[in-house]
């Protein structure tokens, strides 16, 4: 019996979740910026490895929500804080917020899918191809994790550097929604 208990205990230690629960304290946005994703010329691929046959910024556009800001979370398999954010992003997705994961693990769809499955992340995820990943590496100002709240036309409305949390993301979404409303309407 004790033999079984020992195995069970060590088994638990091996499989203990790495994610931490969302923090309740609201943190100030670590940084904000605006800009377009278009110049990055990112080429994206579905997790199956199938390239998305569209132009650079348009390719991202098709994964963004049409009428509200989307949380675009850049991540990689080797980035523990990125992985730790996934349950929180999934919870936001489950509450109706638009979330898109962008993996920098070029050509490793099986690893990407396994990591998403292990963390219960069911929000849309896409991968960068190798060339785009290099471009993104140069463009990501502070490395990973990097989260962008993007407009439907792929404008970066809020950029968050480093590990983020639910309160910060909700604040960023409010900021982004206000920025969208403040935009001059065509013809006015």
């Amino acid at each position: 019996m004790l033999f079984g208990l020992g195995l069970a205990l060590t088994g638990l230690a091996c499989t203990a979740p790495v994610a931490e629960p969302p923090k309740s304290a609201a943190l100030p946005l670590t940084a904000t910026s605006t800009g377009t994703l278009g110049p990055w010329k990112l080429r994206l691929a579905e997790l199956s490895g199938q390239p998305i046959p569209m132009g650079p910024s348009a390719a991202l556009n098709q994964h963004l929500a049409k009428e509200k800001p989307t949380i675009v979370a850049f991540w990689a398999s080797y980035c523990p804080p990125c992985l730790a954010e996934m349950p929180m992003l999934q919870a936001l997705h489950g509450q109706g917020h638009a979330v898109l994961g962008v993996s920098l693990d070029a050509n490793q769809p099986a690893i990407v899918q396994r990591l998403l499955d292990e963390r219960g992340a069911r929000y849309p995820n896409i991968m960068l191809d190798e060339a785009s990943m290099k471009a993104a590496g140069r463009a990501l100002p502070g490395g990973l994790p990097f989260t962008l709240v993007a407009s439907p036309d792929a404008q970066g409305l809020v950029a968050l550097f480093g590990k983020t949390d639910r309160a910060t993301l909700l604040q960023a979404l409010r900021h982004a929604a206000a920025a969208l409303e403040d935009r001059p309407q065509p013809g006015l």
Partner: protein
Amino acid sequence: MNTTRHASLALASLGLALSLGLAGCTKAKAKIKGVGDSLQAFIVTNAETEERTCLVCTYGGQPTIMAVGDVNDEGFKKDLQKIQSLVDGNKAKSLTAFALYGQIKDGKFTALKDQAAARKKLDALRKELALTYPVALVPTSLTEKEKDYTPFTDAYDIVKSRTVMLAEASNKVVFAEVLGASNAQYDALADAVKKL
């Protein structure tokens, strides 16, 4: 007598089970040794800024040289200068680098005990060598906030000073050697950078 014997056996079984289970954990999280592995993220202290950060994450998506050395190894300083030349000459490839210091004795890497003194010494060294990339040291322990990371000494199998790894943009290690007195290993590193 029988009760004592049974209890001893049960405890021995528990010990064996725990050992087997822990061995399983260790195997599941094999240390990074070299070519073909991916650099694993870990926390360092930047000697210049004193910031605790993950440089593998910071340089995610960029080819990166990680150079690990002993704080008393004079030869490592020359390596760092050569690596600076590689970084300077490969800006178009977005090549980045960082130096990581600790104590390497009897084939074992350990964090430097007097972290404050080491930070000052390493920052002075960074200035002296005119390095533009970060010089960092491994902290002695991780904070609660850093619990997502594996400690460097658990993640990497560094047994010698002047161990240098080059990871391509996808984070896969494509070069891992201990640089030596001759230029052979450095030339091999330069070749690996050329192929990026």
